[in-house]
């Protein structure tokens, strides 16, 4: 196990180098350099000023030198300086990270708490009215465009009913914990929708596979109570593949957060990303893409380790 983890961690190094190279090349292909915003302002700027500006940022160097510089700096946590705010990128990301992590964590928990019992109940009562309703809503949830769902929730619960705030993280002037939670409800429902729909399907089919297994029949034959069989034998085993998928999806929540944060004006990484894109702030974009990819790589490793830990049949050579 220890050897396996070491090998996987070592494999992450070439993977991250590959990822950084692709991200760097894509951003290099962007039209207009850092002086783009200066030129867009419509003022006439002395070409020497632009040249000095480019030199100061190091973008007058050949591409491979730029990449090497950027990557070696990124290794020590330095992701460069933002073009627009002239502040270090990692500081800007770190400022926004708590809001995004909060939204992701709440959505993740919400999805797990709803999806898992829903899947278990559906499987135990296969083809019951509950199962059909759950299946129908899962299909609906998977097909739902997330941003539109957000708009409809805003329309119903904020505009028409006035129960919940439209956007933001708190009411200015009357911040409190309950106020903050009220602001969190709609964004986390929107972000968790896809995962509630997906995970409940996985849980249902995983559970259906397990309850027909011989060891379940054995447990019943021993005279165990139904509740004990379901909880101790069936659910425990059925959860293994579902937990792996949930770990893999943790990183995917990040992509969803970009849209959710935009709709609900949630001051996290997603909004920073859209703002930086509109102002062509390439160091910030690269920093966020690198951070997002790093999260994916880490969570994939985490999913593999959790899988091996939960399922002793998996052996690592």
């Amino acid at each position, binding site marked *: 196990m220890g050897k396996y983890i070491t090998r996987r961690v070592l494999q992450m190094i070439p993977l991250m180098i590959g*990822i950084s190279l692709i991200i760097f090349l894509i951003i290099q292909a962007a039209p207009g350099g850092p002086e783009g915003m200066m030129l867009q302002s419509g003022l006439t700027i002395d070409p020497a000023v632009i040249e000095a500006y480019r030199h100061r940022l190091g973008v007058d160097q050949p591409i491979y030198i730029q990449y090497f510089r950027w990557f070696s700096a990124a290794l020590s946590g330095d992701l460069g300086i933002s073009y627009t705010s002239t502040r270090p990128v990692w500081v800007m990301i770190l400022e926004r990270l708590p809001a995004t992590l909060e939204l992701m964590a709440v959505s993740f928990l919400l999805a797990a708490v709803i999806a898992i019992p829903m899947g278990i109940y559906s499987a135990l009562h296969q083809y019951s009215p509950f199962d059909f309703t759950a299946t129908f809503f899962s299909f609906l949830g998977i097909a739902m465009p997330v941003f539109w769902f957000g708009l*409809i929730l805003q329309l119903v619960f904020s505009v028409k009913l006035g129960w919940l705030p439209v956007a933001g993280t708190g009411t200015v002037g009357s911040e409190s914990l309950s106020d903050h939670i009220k602001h969190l409800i709609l964004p986390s429902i929107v972000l968790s929708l896809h995962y509630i729909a997906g995970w409940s399907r996985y849980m249902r089919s995983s559970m259906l596979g397990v309850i027909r297994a011989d060891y379940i029949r054995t447990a019943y034959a021993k005279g165990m109570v139904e509740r004990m069989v379901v909880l101790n034998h069936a659910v425990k085993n059925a959860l293994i593949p579902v937990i792996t998928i949930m770990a893999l999806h943790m990183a995917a929540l990040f992509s969803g957060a970009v*849209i959710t944060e935009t709709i609900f004006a949630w001051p996290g990484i997603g909004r920073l990303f859209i703002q930086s894109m509109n102002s062509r702030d390439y160091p910030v974009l690269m920093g966020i893409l690198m951070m997002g990819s790093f999260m994916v790589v880490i969570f994939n490793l985490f999913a593999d380790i959790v899988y091996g830990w939960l399922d002793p049949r998996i052996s690592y050579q």
Partner: protein
Amino acid sequence: MAVAGRLGEIKIPLEKTRFVSQRRLVWENFKRHKIAVIAAILFVIMTVACYAAPLIAPYEFDEINLSAIRQPPSPEHWMGTDDLGRDLFTRILYGGRISITIGIMAALIGTSLGAFMGALSGFYGGHVDNGLMRFTDIAYSIPTLPLLIVLSSFSNAAVPIIVLIIGFLSWMPTARVVRGSALSLKQKEFVESARMIGALDRTIIWKHIMPNIAGPIIVGTTLAVGSAIIIESSLSFLGLGVQPPTPTWGNMLMDAQSTMASKPWLTIFPGLAILFIVLEVNFIGDGLHDALDPTLRNR
């Protein structure tokens, strides 16, 4: 028909055995999935209606009528009108042409690319496999939506460009599935025999391996149409997809966002159009999945 054997005669009732083609079998299985059939019919109706928009739309898609602006749904304007008095139903039909085309084209590009890379990787193995799969790992690790956002912000957001961007960023799942199947299929006897009679690699891949992975590829393509439609509408909603005046369901929603409270119909109908088409495509995919999987047959 009678077959003589050690245990005596075994009678096989010949007249009761039906010999049907593979395609027929799949079709008959698909027909049993009632919801998928209904979804397929609705999908055809919606798609035909959108493509025939110039024939059936009650108005021109850019017909401005300042005497009928911001009207709620009525008999003259089934889905109401927007800020310029344009008929929303007409715009949804025209928008659907673009959205559905992007969905289908992007899904075809993505899955063909994935199938191609997966087949190469699984069939040749070794360095080819190693290289392609490490590349797949890299592509998988970069968060897709932010990458799509960056790429489409670089381009001029014309329809073909959006199709290419979405297609080129959705090949990875297909590549992995096809690679896995190709790896196990290439060791089967029929591939071995094809090789023995001197078939070219190209022939083996096309004639012997691909038909055996067609099921998951077809299902994957179907589901990819739905996700491509959602991706396109998300990009358009962020103002990065196809630009107005060309209507798509996504950019109609972007326009509607600011006036959502006073004119909710402008938000509700384009979103419902997306939801319905994706729901239909997913149900069709579900039906095809059951119909094409031989292990699920004759339940």
